[in-house]
């Protein structure tokens, strides 16, 4: 059977694959993709053996530093990063969870100072029983995945 790409190939740039479908727009938000002028194509609710439904994003002529891309590990830890040059995958990267997370997530503690004053949030990441948790640098409370809210870049 002829294989068709659901999302067209790009000549040069970065492909983010295996993003959980429900996290697509958060990934776009975290990487600030809605604010850049590069050509971006994406597909979502694609069948995936690994995730059930996945999303894929292809960004032309844009490459990410590790620090920048690792920020999405918070919500899409299984995402695969492919670097494309001249339609070929020249490098594959996996995400690693950064030791600290700045300004992406909201602290779940309603009386945390970051929820009341104009302060950028800062967390230390903790992996506890395979679950990623965030320890707030300010109020010292833990935000778990269930209560994780991403701060919009827009």
């Amino acid at each position, binding site marked *: 059977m002829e294989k068709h790409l659901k999302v067209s190939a790009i000549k040069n740039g970065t492909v983010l694959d295996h993003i959980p479908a429900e996290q697509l727009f958060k990934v776009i938000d975290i990487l600030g993709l809605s604010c850049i002028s590069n050509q971006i194509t994406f597909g979502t609710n694609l069948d995936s053996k690994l995730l059930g439904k996945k999303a894929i994003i292809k960004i032309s002529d844009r490459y990410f530093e590790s620090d920048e891309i690792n920020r999405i590990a918070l919500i899409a830890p299984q995402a695969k990063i492919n670097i494309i040059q001249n339609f070929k995958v020249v490098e594959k990267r996996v995400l690693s969870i950064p030791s600290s997370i700045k300004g992406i997530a909201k602290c779940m*503690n309603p009386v*945390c*100072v*970051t929820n009341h*004053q104009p*302060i950028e949030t800062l967390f230390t990441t903790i992996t506890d029983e395979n679950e990623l948790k965030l320890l707030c640098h*300010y*109020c*010292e409370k*833990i935000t778990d995945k269930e209560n994780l809210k991403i701060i919009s870049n827009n």
Partner: protein
Amino acid sequence: MSRNLISIQDFSKEEILEVLKMAAGFEKNPSQPIFRDKVVASIFFEPSTRTRLSFETAANRLGARVIGFSDAGNTSVTKGETIKDTIKMVSNYADLIVMRHPLEGSARYASEISPVPVINAGDGSNQHPSQTLLDLYSIQKTQGRLDNLFINMVGDLKYGRTVHSLLQAMSHFNPTFLFTAPEELKLPNEYKEYLRKRNIRFEETRNLSDGICQSDILYMTRVQRERFTDAIEYERVKNVYSLNNSMLDGAKPNMKILHPLPRVNEIALDVDNSDHAYYFDQAKNGVYTRMAIITKLFS
């Protein structure tokens, strides 16, 4: 070396012991005006009796002059001034800031903005490290040591910030803990995990009479009405966790009762005259401990 005191975890075991040693020196000789050229700002955005008065007494005994406010209602905060602007401004005037604020993490934030040292005098239900140091001083003074003690913590172990900080600080000294609390106010799992990782022994009970005989320290806390969703449950629990003199019959002679105060009905008045009662002396120790903290941060 720590420049601020925001969380008890900012101080190493050695730094804690250094503060306690200095505090003992100040207890022997409480009037040492060594900081006559210094100004201490005492800024309290929410009410306090002991903490504010003992910090201000400590600063005065060290010869420093004290400026500040005890009610944010009289300040520009009511006009919408941010913590950042208030701290920037106060740090222009003072050489050290003592701050209490209802928002958790506010003291850490202030310390990042301020060019002068900041002491956290309580940030919501998060940290109150000077209370912890005076608790440690009281424990060391009454027991002659900090190592290998049996500490029974009673009452609100869920929200009580003094409990959490004391537990972390005591972890340096190989304690055994008994946590006595109603189901609704049990110690949160994150602190139990903290102790497990450090191989510190602890047990839990709902019965106050369970651990009194074994205890070296009985650390009582207030069970607060506002923590309960069910008023009937509060009424039931409040009496269960009320200590009276007859319950102390089998206590070890060295056992002392500590309480961060204010107490309501968790310690009956007939306990006050017992040799085991130490909570008022504990509050007095606050002045010496805070003199030591100020001295450490100034040097």
